[in-house]
């Protein structure tokens, strides 16, 4: 049998696993307080922002600290995985140049390693159940959380593929990603609820699948309400479209990665 290039098989999943765990462990080792630091960070942010918004700006959102914490933990996942995926082909240049494997694995592994961090951070929410008992609603809607998170992961996978591959060819992508994240931060209800946004602008948020994901998760956790059909559509359609596009972009630039790195 004649083949062009290396064989493709399920063993690639093993590489994905090795790199994901390596990235996760390396980060964990590099932090002075270990895992504690990544737990402390969102809690401190939550404390400060809740103080500012409930005492200074007088927000009327019920259970504002929990609202905030969910937003911050989710956003942390978004920004860290996009930022780190940007430079992945540069930091793994040696491996990319001299070994042969599907290059998609690298940005995906980086993103997944942050997904592990996200899981750990998200578990902090359990600590707050006794402190803010009204903020959590036990309901069958909780079963939808993994599905919503799966779409978040898919969305970030798409983003990771695009930024990583473009950054090889164009070295200004890291700056563009930074600026893009800053804009996205304010286009996503991370620290404010959607209903403070006046009507014409609310339509902008509707096009942002991240906004849908944030709202859906908050609704499920804090009010026990399953996302409406419209909300599902605003999550699923843009996510699938973006992932499809990013896969095509990656395929287009993939060959160049091998020459440029």
């Amino acid at each position, binding site marked *: 049998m004649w083949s062009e290039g290396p064989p493709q098989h399920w063993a690639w999943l093993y590489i994905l696993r090795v790199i994901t765990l390596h990235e996760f462990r390396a980060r964990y080792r590099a932090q002075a307080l270990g895992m504690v630091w990544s737990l402390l960070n969102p809690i401190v942010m939550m404390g400060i922002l809740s103080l500012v918004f409930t005492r200074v700006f007088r927000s009327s959102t019920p259970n504002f600290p929990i609202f905030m914490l969910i937003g911050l933990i989710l956003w942390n996942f978004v920004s860290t995985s996009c930022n780190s995926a940007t430079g992945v082909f540069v930091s793994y240049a040696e491996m990319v140049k001299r070994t042969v494997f599907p290059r998609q694995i690298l940005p995906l592994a980086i993103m997944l390693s942050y997904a592990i961090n996200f899981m750990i951070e998200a578990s902090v929410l359990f600590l707050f159940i006794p402190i803010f008992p009204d903020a959590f609603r036990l309901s069958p809607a909780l079963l939808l959380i993994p599905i919503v998170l799966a779409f978040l992961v898919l969305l970030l996978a798409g983003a990771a593929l695009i930024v990583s591959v473009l950054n090889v060819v*164009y070295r200004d992508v890291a700056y563009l990603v930074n600026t893009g994240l800053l804009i996205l931060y304010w286009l996503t209800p991370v620290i404010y609820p959607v209903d403070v946004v006046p009507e014409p602008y609310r339509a902008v948020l509707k096009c942002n699948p991240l906004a849908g994901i944030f709202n859906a998760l908050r609704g499920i956790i804090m009010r026990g309400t399953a996302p409406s059909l419209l909300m599902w559509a605003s999550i699923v359609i843009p996510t699938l479209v973006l992932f499809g596009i990013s896969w095509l972009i990656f395929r287009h630039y993939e060959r160049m990665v091998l*020459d440029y790195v």
Partner: protein
Amino acid sequence: MVPRQVEATAKQPVILRVNRVGKAFRRFEHQPFLLRNLLMRLVGRSPPQKEFWPLRDISFEIGVGETVGVVGRNGSGKSTLLRLIAGACYPTEGEILVRGRIAPLLSLGVGFQPDMTGLECVEMNATALGLSREEIAAGMEAILSFAELTDFMQTPVRFYSSGMLARLGFSVAIHATPDLLLLDEVLSVGDLRFQKKCLERIHELQKSGTTILFVSHGPGAVRDLCDRVLWLRDGELVRDGMPGPILDEYEAAAG
């Protein structure tokens, strides 16, 4: 070692066919910027692109069980050729067909990620070479002990010496039981004792029918190991045949 006749081996099944292969790299005066490129494309002024061809119009076939040396000066395209065959980059023109499992050992360090431990590197590389998880688990001890690195398997490889890196890379590559082994200048590192160990291992592989493509700028090891030599000069294949006369000519040309 008596070199086998090229005519005889050519009748054997072909494991590698390189057909009119060329590789172009784009040349930059500076790294391109996405924003500027997009803007320039909008105004219809694409930046000029210069090309540079490290390899052009290379054709040859290698039969199963042959050991072929590739010689040439720095910049003659040897390493690019090996990377192309390994699948670590794509040819711009022509085609490369390979039958079976390739184990590329593309120079020192073999693409280990510096932060990874020796163990993680072996897992990564062995998987990239096509070994299954079970095969890796079963071969791990043999790989580490051949490389004499069992004590350092939990050490990140950035702390390894160049000799240690080369040993680990070589060890993974030969334990992958490849059909085609690509070796790029690997014998120039490591101490004499390990070089001897590697050569013994290469002879064993030759006996068991592994095809080997061996790159070196020094003709010494090529003379000992290979039964055929390819000579690359400025990206062109100038000689293909018996090692004796070609290497004499190569050495004479090198002065």
